[in-house]
């Protein structure tokens, strides 16, 4: 029982990692109707920027918010510079550019900051207020921040006209233009927001897994899994999905023949399984078009 609890909470802690990335994945999906395979690398790069700021002597929160702003602008710039010329190209061309961005960010980060791991500070105290070793203070704080981001995103999409316009631009760009939405800038805004969320995720993940150029390689897949399991159209679903993937993966390691050797395979089976039963994820909306 003790072990079960340990793994459950451990799963929640890892789940928070996946959830934060899943949130960024959903954000960009809302904007461009697509995955960004370079998402993890962008988050990693943002975290390096924050690390660099800290190294130059910035206080934690100054670096934190500066990094968010820089990442936002960077995201906007990527859309405006790299993707603008290929707006009308087929989807696969976009995927190739995602792959290109992936290798560029990974390589440049390694070139500037090299590949040895770096400790990244946590903004939270190291002591938990209550007597438990089940979950650390950083993990708790991370869960809180993820939920806060989720709330902010919910409000943004639900109650602001820009949020609404963003969803409209992604779902039906032609119609969106006809109601006066500048689709191009919505795309750029989506990129910026996704980059900013990714930056927060990166800065929260780095204290746990350590900062290095390849830190997101494994995490991104789980983040995708969380987003898909929860439903790509639902930020809340993505967060729940992220936690679910973390918990199930950890609990699966208790099953004797799976052990920790097949954790990744468990994630695979989970993705395919959920999609077979609910093609739009657990919380995703089913889109029905009547003619």
């Amino acid at each position: 029982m003790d072990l079960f609890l340990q793994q459950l909470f451990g799963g929640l802690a890892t789940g928070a990692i996946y959830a934060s990335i899943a949130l960024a994945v959903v954000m960009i999906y809302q904007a461009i109707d697509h995955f960004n395979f370079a998402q993890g690398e962008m988050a990693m790069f943002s975290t390096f920027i924050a690390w660099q700021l800290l190294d130059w002597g910035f206080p934690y929160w100054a670096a934190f918010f500066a990094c968010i702003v820089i990442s936002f602008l960077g995201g906007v710039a990527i859309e405006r510079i790299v993707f603008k010329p290929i707006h009308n190209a087929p989807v696969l061309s976009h995927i190739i550019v995602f792959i290109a961005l992936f290798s560029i960010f990974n390589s440049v980060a390694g070139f500037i900051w090299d590949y040895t791991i770096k400790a990244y500070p946590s903004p939270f105290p190291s002591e938990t207020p209550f007597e438990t070793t089940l979950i650390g203070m950083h993990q708790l704080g991370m869960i809180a921040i993820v939920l806060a981001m989720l709330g902010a995103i919910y409000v943004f999409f639900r109650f602001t006209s820009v949020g609404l316009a963003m969803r409209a631009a992604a779902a039906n760009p032609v119609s969106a233009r006809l109601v006066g939405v500048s689709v191009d800038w919505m795309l750029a805004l989506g990129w910026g927001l996704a980059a900013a969320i990714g930056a927060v995720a990166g800065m929260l993940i780095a204290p746990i897994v350590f900062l290095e150029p390849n830190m997101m390689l494994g995490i991104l897949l789980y983040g995708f899994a969380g987003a898909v399991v929860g439903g790509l159209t639902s930020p809340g679903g993505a967060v729940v999905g992220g936690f679910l993937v973390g918990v199930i993966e950890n609990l699966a390691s208790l099953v004797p023949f799976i052990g920790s050797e097949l954790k990744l395979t468990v994630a695979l089976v989970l993705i395919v399984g959920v999609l077979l039963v609910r093609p739009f994820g657990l919380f995703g909306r089913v889109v029905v078009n009547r003619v």
Partner: protein
Amino acid sequence: MPTRNPADMLQIAGIEMVSWRRIWLVAGLVIAIALPFLFEGFTVFQLTRALIYAIAILGLNLLTGFNGQFSLGHSAFFAIGAYTTAIMMDRWEVAYYWTILPAAAVCFVAGFLFGLPALRLEGLYLALATFALATATPQILKYEPVAKFTGGVQGLDVFPDDSPVSFLSNDQWWYYFTLVVALIAFLVAWNLVRGRTGRAMIAIRDNPIASKTMGINTALYKSLTFGVSAAFTGVAGALEAIVIQFVAPDSFTFLLAVSFLVGLVVGGIGSIPGAIFGGLFILLIPNWADQISQGLSWAIYGLFLIGAVYVMPAGAAGLVRLVTMRLAKKPSG
């Protein structure tokens, strides 16, 4: 969207296009046969690998280009093909040339089976499921119960016989062997795409609902295409095992699947000859990037990719089509 369907383009350009294509074909074949005598062993070895990648990309093309299903997981089928060959040669000492068809068969079954659940997935979701498959493949190959066959992390050495032709070196021999397999693969693909099956595949890609009402068994065709596509890629994997003479789980990471996708897009989606260009691209460009700067080789590769997408939005095949169309147009005015 520019030039989606090569068949349409052919009709637009008319007869001239066909004769141009014939010239390309003959010239290509002559060059392909002459190449091993123009270069030293290592380059021939590289060309062989480019051909192998071309076959793998061709397989992916059947699925994505002609049937509209995405896959980021073809490294898995490449691995299954490679391991089929390696295990047959390692355990039962089967001669290498007898392992190609079994590798294709095993991959066909694997692809078909994976294609069944994939039926319910579309676009992104399918891409993700296959991406997960690619990431899990090395892990599964190392898994204890299968490790006795796969050699686990250590991998398996493969010892194919030497060149049976006295005036051909091993490299030249492997090249011709691969070339023959590749020619067969391309011919099969060509006939498949232009026949009834191909029309059904393309119909499903362009309008799944309409093709259903036309009486095409979309589910069957989609799974079949998945199987056929996997079989092509599996043949490539088998050849790779023979030529590299070694298989290990780390050879088949998701980066390989990503490479295939890159080759597909750069070569030209829905273009059969484009696969050859794709194979050359994914083999040569990383090497060039590495020569330009070791530390930043991936970044340079990334820039190459973006450049390729900008310059050739419809892949190399699209570019060639555009150029030949211009050339064909000129004399007639």
